[in-house]
């Protein structure tokens, strides 16, 4: 640590200013836009042009649209109630499945892949640079009425007529979400499981624990942090996902919050509602975001 002070002393005082351009950029194009969302939500609609007029002065803010949107979320049969219920249900289910599939995969990559570790890691990482749209397009062909999956199921006499996978089936959507986001679950789990020292497990064994108890009492507790990080990192993007629904289950009965937001923005008169929905989503997601930021900061401080 003393050496760090040594280098710091040789650096000119203006050194921290190197961060200024990026910080300025984020203030202009990341922080300020949130204020625009507030100004639009609490603004008004131009009666002639029928488009939103943002209220830049907070003292003139009008909460009518926010309370309208909120009551349509919380009341049964409200405009957005179903979208929120679907989102919580589908995202919750998909995240759980991500964990159930991701944990064994991460465990395998970290501890059991042996000399094939590099190959499996490369195969595992491939989806990160392969276009998600291309992969969704592939699933659409596979799940189509005359696609390979239906033909196989008919050939095996599981079903007699093609199953309409793509006609608004919640199951298809949930599996699509799992498919899209499971790598994000595996990544933090792998990083943690890979770092648990072998000596800890040997200690467990030496103290007479069976392999099963070693897993439940040593390995699993060591990975709680990573499990939570994985859950958060899956939930966050899934909440804003609307294209998986559009491509795999495009029906009213599977609409999610993201769909409601994107649809609202296509008509200027409803833009305020879209902005209000974004505010609600942001408020809902800030606790997990803050949790994630705190846990990663702790991890980097430990690594230092």
């Amino acid at each position: 640590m003393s050496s760090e002070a040594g280098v710091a002393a040789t650096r000119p005082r203006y050194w921290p200013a190197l961060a200024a351009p990026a910080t300025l950029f984020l203030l202009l194009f990341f922080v300020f836009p949130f204020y625009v969302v507030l100004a639009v939500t609490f603004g008004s609609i131009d009666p002639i042009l029928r488009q939103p007029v943002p209220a830049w002065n907070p003292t003139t803010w009008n909460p009518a649209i926010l309370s309208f949107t909120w009551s349509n979320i919380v009341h049964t049969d409200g405009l957005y109630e179903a979208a929120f219920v679907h989102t919580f249900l589908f995202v919750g289910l998909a995240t759980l499945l991500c964990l159930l599939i991701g944990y064994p995969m991460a465990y395998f990559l970290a501890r059991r892949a042996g000399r094939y570790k590099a190959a499996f890691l490369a195969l595992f990482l491939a989806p990160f640079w392969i276009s998600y749209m291309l992969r969704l397009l592939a699933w659409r062909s596979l799940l189509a009425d005359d696609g390979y999956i239906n033909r196989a199921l008919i050939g095996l006499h599981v079903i007699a007529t093609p199953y309409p996978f793509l006609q608004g089936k919640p199951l298809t959507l949930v599996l699509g979400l799992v498919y899209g986001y499971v790598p994000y679950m595996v990544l933090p789990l792998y990083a943690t499981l890979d770092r648990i020292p072998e000596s800890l497990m040997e200690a467990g064994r030496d103290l007479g624990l069976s392999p099963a108890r070693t897993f439940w009492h040593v390995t699993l507790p060591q990975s709680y942090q990573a499990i939570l990080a994985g859950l958060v990192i899956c939930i966050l993007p899934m909440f804003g996902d609307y294209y998986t629904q559009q491509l795999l289950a495009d029906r009213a009965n599977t609409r999610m919050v993201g769909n409601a937001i994107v649809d609202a923005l296509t008509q200027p008169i409803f833009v305020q509602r879209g902005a209000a929905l974004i505010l609600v989503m942001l408020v809902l997601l800030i606790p997990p975001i803050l949790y994630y930021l705190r846990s990663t900061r702790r991890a980097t401080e430990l690594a230092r």
Partner: protein
Amino acid sequence: MSATGTLAARPTRRGLRGWLGNPWGDTRVLWVVAIAYVAWTLLPVAEAVLFSFNKGRSITRWEGFSLRWYVSDPNGSVLHDPALQHAVIQSLKLASLTVAVTLPLGVAFALALNARRGPGTSSQNFLMIFSFVVPELILAVSLFLLVLDAFRFIGLGTTAQLVGLVVLALAYPVVIVRARLLSLGSSYEEAAADLGASPMRTLGRVTLPLLGPSIFASGAIVFAFVLDDFVIVNQLSKDASTQTVAMAIYGAARTAPTPATNAIGTLMLVTSTVVIAIAVIVQRRIARRTAGPAILGAPEPQAADSSAGS
């Protein structure tokens, strides 16, 4: 789907209780899970690539191999569809521009934050990571409102798309370069300072060359990441002239996809695979050259000698 299938199917054979007691005791179970996982994630990709070479119009029924949808079809092939070509150009343009803006901003940010804890360092860092984890839709919508209602001079289109992509991708070079700075430690810079190099000279002659591979790698990741992006580019696009490949695939998939859709997807897949592969190769080669002898105090930079002695 197959992965859940294996998870559910296995326990019945060995007894559910026995399996719950020791889920990964049997390594074979994990091998099955891993192979099923890889097949499940990558077989659809193979299917998509295969059907880009289909002779017929269908993307569900195989009718034989041809390059029809790449070159020969007079109406629908990539070679004869200006809209598809324009989408490819727009994707590559946005990816290059984003890399060009993101790298200097991100590397400077990482250097500043690594140096010392100045006033506001932790809140700047917080801001950066916050931008990284906020759902993309929230970013896209807030920027959409920004360019329509506040910064009207930007407006929807390529500039707005570029701004959004930079916000989205900025954290990649920061995180990757900071990790490299941490692992390098301060001995190289100290050695350079001991030998009388000015801070700027140290930066140019010692630090940046050592960071080269990680800067290059983060550039490649940003490039591939932008090629894949959909939400930001779609929300901030103006019209057909700012359509990207991801948007073209999305639009075609919802209406009437032909194998030409698979063909541009495949072209993009090849592009990002090549970019990532080059990054990996460069990183390995440079890592071998510098990490090997330099850290052992062998000839290469003078810095290494004195750091070994200190």
